[in-house]
């Protein structure tokens, strides 16, 4: 009685040892660091390392270490002040070919890292950073789809010599094509059915004209929606990479949402700007026959569209778009060597190059405008409900005369400063989004709050823990001390488990650890009180120990499982910090079941098992 077989004792020791090893990385802490990654094919070599070292030396910033990896260089510093200054220095030294990101590099020694031991992942509320939930504007995507069909239809009908009166998108969706007579309509129907199978057509009569109402098939819409989401995901990932954030998270959530988490980001306003804005360019010829002033007063000539330029002056441009921004494959920011002003050189894809070349061929000597289009989202209250309203801001940022037939490469000038050039290049390089996205949820934690949270959370947890340890020792004597050992073991195991699973520790998560400690104590109390009860009923000490553990186990099991149910539900429904709490609570319950039942029993068995006992120090 009260003897554990050797294998069981060894197993417990092994688990303890593993726990200690995998919990160790958390003791090592982090260095504030800079991570340098190439933008495209720029080399990571000793020369680069040298440049960085020189830049830092001339700024008087001494790094702790410079580590060169296969695809990046890591520069470690003593404190965040030096890290931040170093970022500016290195960024200006390396220019646009490299991205410099703020990072927290763990100091875990290599042998630990080799077996996969890493410290726990700290949540945003402990590290500081930004969390966005972005939603793809599905309706806008549908609208853009329909507009593409409209222009495709026009050329389709024209190429097949089918006459039509109008082709236009309807306000509430769908495309209406009107004809002069029923004959044309039937011809169109046949062509549409054959060439554009993704459209369904129904006959209608629009006033006196026979018409066709076309709708995009739902499966096709769904397909496109998925593609739009994918493209947005990729674009956001690119933009996030370009922001220079280490360990970002960009993930799909549900059908139309994307979660973006940027730990350690300090300039949140800029992050929001870059991520939330969608921008694209359009190139249009200036409408030379019209009068912009008159147009502003209300008379817009046929085939023209009114815009405003940077200073608010009205500009008339032609309706037809020469080239759209989605043909841009590269955009950089630089300085024009001739006048020292900021510029953005742009490279087009082949298709775009062809279109542009054709369009500019006939327009040499004429002015062309670059229109910058930004999609913004406003929240308005309409009839008592808050709705999101799209707003498109279109601005002419540049009018230049076409000097020659343009092709694959050209430049945009007329920007205010290098910061603007950099931002513009960033937006264009990462590509225009397939459908606009808006931010529906945002949580930003400044770095100081993150630091405070860690300190206070750990302090509260530590004090609570120590109080419990003292109490157990005092109230239950030797058994209490054994229980204390088990509690410590429990904590180590919990930390190890979270490190192995790379679970995220949040501030409520620390509270969860504390709570699971309380539950572990509860289990011990159940066992020890039972042992005491058995002793009171005049059972022998050995029998009491045995009975105590056996009878208490069912209770411990049932009560822990029910709390576990609550924990799992919280995990399933919770987000962010709440999820972190559910994780630590659930894992803590599991580890406590192991340590209090098996762990304490192993020690008690070793101390008291198989001997004749007069009394028990419980």
């Amino acid at each position: 009685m009260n003897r554990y077989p050797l294998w069981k004792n060894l197993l417990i020791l092994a688990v303890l040892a593993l726990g200690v090893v995998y919990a160790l990385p958390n003791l090592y802490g982090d260095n504030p660091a800079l991570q340098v990654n190439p933008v495209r094919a720029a080399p990571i070599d000793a020369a680069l390392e040298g440049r960085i070292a020189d830049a830092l030396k001339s700024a008087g910033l001494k790094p702790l270490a410079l580590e060169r990896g296969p695809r990046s260089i890591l520069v470690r510093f003593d404190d965040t002040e030096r890290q931040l200054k170093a970022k500016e220095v290195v960024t200006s030294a390396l220019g646009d070919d490299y991205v410099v990101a703020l990072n927290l590099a763990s100091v875990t020694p290599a042998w630990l890292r080799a077996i996969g031991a890493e410290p726990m992942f700290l949540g945003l509320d402990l590290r500081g950073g930004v969390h966005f939930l972005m939603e793809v504007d599905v309706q806008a995507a549908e609208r853009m789809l329909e507009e593409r069909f409209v222009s495709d239809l026009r050329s389709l009908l024209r190429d097949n010599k089918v006459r039509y009166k109008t082709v236009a998108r309807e306000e509430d969706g769908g495309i209406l094509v009107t004809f002069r007579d029923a004959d044309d309509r039937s011809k169109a129907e046949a062509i549409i059915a054959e060439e554009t199978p993704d459209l369904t057509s129904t006959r209608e009569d629009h006033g006196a004209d026979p018409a066709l109402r076309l709708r995009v098939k739902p499966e096709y819409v769904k397909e496109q929606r998925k593609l739009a989401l994918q493209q947005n995901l990729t674009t956001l990932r690119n933009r996030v990479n370009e922001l220079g954030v280490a360990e970002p998270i960009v993930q799909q959530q549900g059908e139309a949402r994307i979660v973006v988490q940027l730990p350690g980001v300090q300039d949140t306003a800029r992050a929001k700007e870059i991520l939330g804005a969608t921008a694209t360019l359009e190139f249009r010829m200036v409408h030379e026959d019209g009068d912009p002033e008159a147009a502003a007063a209300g008379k817009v000539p046929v085939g023209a569209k009114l815009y405003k330029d940077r200073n608010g002056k009205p500009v008339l441009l032609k309706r037809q778009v020469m080239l759209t921004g989605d043909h841009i494959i590269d955009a950089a920011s630089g300085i024009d060597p001739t006048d020292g002003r900021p510029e953005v050189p742009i490279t087009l894809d082949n298709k775009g190059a062809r279109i542009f070349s054709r369009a500019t061929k006939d327009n040499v000597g004429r002015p062309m405008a670059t229109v910058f289009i930004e999609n913004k989202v406003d929240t308005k209250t309409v009839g008592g409900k808050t709705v999101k309203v799209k707003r498109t801001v279109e601005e002419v940022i540049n009018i230049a005369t076409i000097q020659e037939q343009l092709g694959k490469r050209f430049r945009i000038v007329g920007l205010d400063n290098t910061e603007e050039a950099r931002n513009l290049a960033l937006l264009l390089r990462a590509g225009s989004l397939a459908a606009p996205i808006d931010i529906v949820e945002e949580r930003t934690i400044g770095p100081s709050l993150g630091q405070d949270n860690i300190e206070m959370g750990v302090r509260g947890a530590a004090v609570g823990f120590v109080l419990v340890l003292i109490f157990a020792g005092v109230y239950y004597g030797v058994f209490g001390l054994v229980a204390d050992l088990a509690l410590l073991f429990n904590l180590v195991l919990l930390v190890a488990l979270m490190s192995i699973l790379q679970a995220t520790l949040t501030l409520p998560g620390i509270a969860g650890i504390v709570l699971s400690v309380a539950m572990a104590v509860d289990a011990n109390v159940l066992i020890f009180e039972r042992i005491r009860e058995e002793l009171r009923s005049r059972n022998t000490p050995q029998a009491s120990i045995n009975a105590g553990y056996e009878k208490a186990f069912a209770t411990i099991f049932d009560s822990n499982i029910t709390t576990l149910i609550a924990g799992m539900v919280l995990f399933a429904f919770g987000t962010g910090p709440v999820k972190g709490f559910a994780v630590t609570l659930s894992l803590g319950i599991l580890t406590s079941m192991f340590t209090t039942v098996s762990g304490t029993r192993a020690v008690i068995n070793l101390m008291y098992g198989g001997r004749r006992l007069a009394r028990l120090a419980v």
Partner: protein
Amino acid sequence: MDFFKTTPKIDFMGVRQIAIGLSLVLLVSSFIAFATRGLNFGIDFTGGTLIEVAYDRVVDLGEVRKQLAAAGFDSAIVQHVGSAKGVIVRIPPRAGMQSAEISNRVLDALKKDTQASVEMRQVEFVGPQVGEELVEDGGLALIFALFGILVYVALRFELRLAVASVIATVHDLLLTTGLVSILGLQFDLTMLAAILTVAGYSINDTIVVFDRIRENFRKLRRESPLEVMNRSINETLSRTLITGPTSLMVLTALYFLGGDVIDDFALTLIIGVVIGTFSSIYIASPIALLLGVSRTDLMPVKKEGSGIAERP
């Protein structure tokens, strides 16, 4: 050290009418609190923007309100947080402005005309749609948790006890939330997590008592259900009165030292633990008795031929 050198013999079931009566009074007070004060919903559920700033000196809330009103935010709720140097600004969902703009403009408004250094500590923005979803998810979470617990207890014990335990838990949740309403604590996602944890804890406590009841029903052949329950509660009293205070010890440390992000959380749990302990002793068993729990419900399923072994 042992406070319970002899098993107590307090007649808990005897006072059950008074206990249930007291509970009903408290429940009614809770409902009145909900109806009059309502819950102080945080932006997690209402949507809106929350901005926390830290000044380097004590700041007067009235001044802050004036600054905000001048910038066009006259519906802002301004409170101190942590100390008199920390301020939280809550702005309800705003027509015509994006979150990025709101927080930037608020910060600008606060920085203007003041020599104090203003530092942004945190910003939260929840779109109205997401807010609604979180309400839904929170409600579903609660229902799922209670249902899961009901099923588990019914399987391990029996149905009447399961129903009684869930009623006791719902009672605890209502009372705790009522107190949260009276104290005006902010009801956000973390608070919801605290409430769900209270549910877990309350059930935990109740299970321990029911486990002993089950054991005693099988052991004590002659006592009535009432006596069995009384004995069971007394026998588990030593555990209940140790675990409760140890949990409270730990939670109180968190409350005082954990900082203002989790102090509301800790406070709710403290309230929940106290109420949960009370309900495990005074509420769960009487309700089970009311529902007619008896020995036969808890006997293990008899096998063939075991009748012979049963005979004394």
